[in-house]
């Protein structure tokens, strides 16, 4: 028995020794374990280490990338004709000529835009950036082999539709000659400048030039950068390495020497721990929902390490104007009965700020009209709803927040005699169902984030009845009012301050008189950086930290 016991003891000891040995096997230079930066105290240089918790870029190819995270990276790798400055709101959402030497000359009744391209610009591989580089982006986006989601954003350019039908046909309305680029539209499109600042139109070397990206629906994982940085390497589902573009001579900042997205789809809790410990400088994917209150208490808001900034986005209840909510008074009643602050509180601390209008409060043109209350006014709501009981079907998401919001709406509307039955779906499924005209729903819990900061992207896209189809709609309330359709069309043709002012008035008028939706929230972007990180600035258009400014302390 004695020997048997010894045998077992030896086996246990070997097992334990292996585990302990493994525990001490970490070399001193392990980067994940929190090696200290040799640039401590410096404002430039060094490598920023980032995570993307619970998320990843969709693509890094400018013709395909359509996620907020992807655009935040492309923002520092691209030099579009017009761009947004590396500044906080409101300056950060005003266009400035970046790749273009000046704002374009507009002629032919607003249908021809002529840009002068800056001279002396080069891609990160040394190839000169000319008008051809910008045209190459349009042609590549339009090529049917790319299957680019950019198509709806430039379909009003002459020849865009033809180009989409044939891979060999370039966009005839975009012409390049030396440093001159002209863009011809089929009809006046005053928001074209905002659309052209989208990163879909990031310049790329033209076909035949060194580094020209291939035309493939999978997209490319690296391409020559034109901004202060370039994407040096990317493994799909894995790390992304961004380096300084040594050929960039423009005005934009470039504090870090390199930026490494170390891990994507990271667990949000472990990633948060990594940022707290300083192993990771910043998690682009966000924070655990329960962390916000504690962080704000510990670090304050927008002071040291925890930041809260509005995003150009609105969450709302689409009230189906084809069914129960064809009755304007009833739509207004819902707007009076909705507990907007309660809806936001369900999303955690500092998730957003209440609103009763479609245009986000940080979008140019917004006018605060104070139409509906942020806490329910059931007396007024009941007056508008009248007597009698009704039933409604609400679609929401299966997420815990979506489910709870469904319950809150159910409770609010019960007070005014509307018995709401809540159906839950995965997010993609819910949007598909709400976008189908024949779908039997009355309320849809949706949201919209700006593709580009122009009121058209909210008003016309979400409320114009002219774009209602049998399926794949964005007008989730199926609001179709001939008078307002005309007014929205007219606003879309306006330029400059008048455009924004008109849209602002239209937003308040429509919400006040027709209340086609029940808007409740303008989202906030909530971010946390490590103690070793500085120079945080929120880029208001992309709604995340400006990576060109972020630095190591």
């Amino acid at each position: 028995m004695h020997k048997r016991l010894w045998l077992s003891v030896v086996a246990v000891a070997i097992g334990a020794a292996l585990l302990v040995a493994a525990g001490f096997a970490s070399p001193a230079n392990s980067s994940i374990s929190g090696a200290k930066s040799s640039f401590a105290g410096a404002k430039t240089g060094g490598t920023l280490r980032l995570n993307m918790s619970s998320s990843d870029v969709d693509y890094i190819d400018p013709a395909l990338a359509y996620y907020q995270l992807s655009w935040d990276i492309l923002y520092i790798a691209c030099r579009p004709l017009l761009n947004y400055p590396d500044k906080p709101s409101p300056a950060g959402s005003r266009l400035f000529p970046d790749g273009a030497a000046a704002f374009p000359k507009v002629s032919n009744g607003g249908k021809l835009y002529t840009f002068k391209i800056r001279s002396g610009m080069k891609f990160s591989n040394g190839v000169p950036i000319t008008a051809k580089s910008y045209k190459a982006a349009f042609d590549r986006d339009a090529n049917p082999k790319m299957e680019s989601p950019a198509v709806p954003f430039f379909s009003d350019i002459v020849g865009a539709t033809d180009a989409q039908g044939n891979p060999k046909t370039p966009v005839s309305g975009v012409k390049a000659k030396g440093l001159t680029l002209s863009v011809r539209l089929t009809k006046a499109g005053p928001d074209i400048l905002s659309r052209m600042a989208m990163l879909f139109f990031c310049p790329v070397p033209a076909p035949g030039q060194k580094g020209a990206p291939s035309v493939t629906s999978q997209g490319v994982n690296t391409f020559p950068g034109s901004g202060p940085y370039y994407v040096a390497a990317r493994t799909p589902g894995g790390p992304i390495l961004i380096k300084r573009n040594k050929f960039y001579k423009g005005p934009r900042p470039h504090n870090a020497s390199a930026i490494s997205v170390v891990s994507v789809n990271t667990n949000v809790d472990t990633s948060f721990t990594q940022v707290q410990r300083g192993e990771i400088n910043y998690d682009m994917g966000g924070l655990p929902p329960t962390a916000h209150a504690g962080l704000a208490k510990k670090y304050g808001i927008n002071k040291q390490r925890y930041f809260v900034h509005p995003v150009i986005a609105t969450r709302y209840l689409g009230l189906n104007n084809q069914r129960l909510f064809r009755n304007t008074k009833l739509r207004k009643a819902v707007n009076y009965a909705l507990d907007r602050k309660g809806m936001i509180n369900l999303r955690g601390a500092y998730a957003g700020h209440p609103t009763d209008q479609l245009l986000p409060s940080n979008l140019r043109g917004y006018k605060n009209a104070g139409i509906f209350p942020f806490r329910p006014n059931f007396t007024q709501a009941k007056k508008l709803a009248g007597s009698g009981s009704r039933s409604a079907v609400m679609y929401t998401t299966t997420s815990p927040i979506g489910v709870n919001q469904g319950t809150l709406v159910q409770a609010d509307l019960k007070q005014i005699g509307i018995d709401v039955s809540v159906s839950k779906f995965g997010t993609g499924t819910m949007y598909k169902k709400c976008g189908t005209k024949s779908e039997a729903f009355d309320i849809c819990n949706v949201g919209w984030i700006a593709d580009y900061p122009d009121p058209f992207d909210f008003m016309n896209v979400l409320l114009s009845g002219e774009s209602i189809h049998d399926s794949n709609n964005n007008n989730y309330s199926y609001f179709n009012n001939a008078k307002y359709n005309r007014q929205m069309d007219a606003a879309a043709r306006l330029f400059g301050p008048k455009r924004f002012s008109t849209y602002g008035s239209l937003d308040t008028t429509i919400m006040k008189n027709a209340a086609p939706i029940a808007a409740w929230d303008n989202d906030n972007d909530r971010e946390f950086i490590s103690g070793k990180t500085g120079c945080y600035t929120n880029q208001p258009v992309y709604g995340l930290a400006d990576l060109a400014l972020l630095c190591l302390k």
Partner: protein
Amino acid sequence: MIRYLIRRLLWAVVLFVAITIITYIIFFMIPTDPARKACGQLVTPACVKSARHYLGLDRPVYIQYYKFLERLVVHQSLGRSFANRQNINSIIGRAAPITASLVFGGAVTWLLLAIPIGILSALRPRTLLDRSAMVFVLVGISAHPVWIGLIFSWFFGYKLGITPIAGYCEAFSPPQGAACGGVVQWFYHMILPWITFAILFAALYVRMIRANVMETLNEDYVRTARAKGAPESRVMFKHVLRNAMLPVVTMLGMDIALGLGGAVFTESVYSLHGLGQTLVQSLSGDDLPTTQGIVVFGTLAIIVFNLIVDLLYAFIDPRIRLT
């Protein structure tokens, strides 16, 4: 032997077809539309139509299934992802080694923990050591791997700083931009995942080994061996452990297969982009080709692994013959 192999292979084909058909049917019952997703937020009917054509969703389901089988058999291709259009062979090629690292390393860890503890418990029943081992078993079975992982990550990674909090390092040829690489770093980053993954199985195995050893110790042939004056080490290794460990080999085969599915919890906590995490992402993103690819790969891996275990079992236990 040959007949046995052929029979197993035929069953494998039937199983494979059945599983892939079921996966296809489940996906077509979900009212979602990957084409709409491909068009982004500003969706238009024209874009959706074009995307449906590109993704092959405009064809009847049986044609889509036939195309999938044809691609798989003729070109050995699992197709392209709906979500990011990547080649699924590459996606699985990147994820499978991570899961394999976790599962096989975890299996070694749980055996290293379970065998000595189980044997010690059996040799000293009802002692403090045995009771402590039973507490370990209770905790190991009761605590969820996600909870264990988060606690370990916080305590060893954040508080003590002796292990990484999360992340994975490629042992060989790490991708450009990776935070780390090499065998030492790979090992260092896998310590906590292995232990987290192993605890549940270690607990089950401790209990099983303890029972088996205690039962074998009372067998007549053990008593006979001792009566004949055989050294204790010989009695333990040749008579007790060899017989007591037979069920462990069978269980190991099944549990490694089970672990392929269970690995998702550990992968999720430690941000290991293995098959489990990739599968969860593909399911939430309505990415049928990736889900299907992982199901196919997992099915084949389990079939092959069980076949190996069956052959190994026949080798270890002469009483068993493959017929």
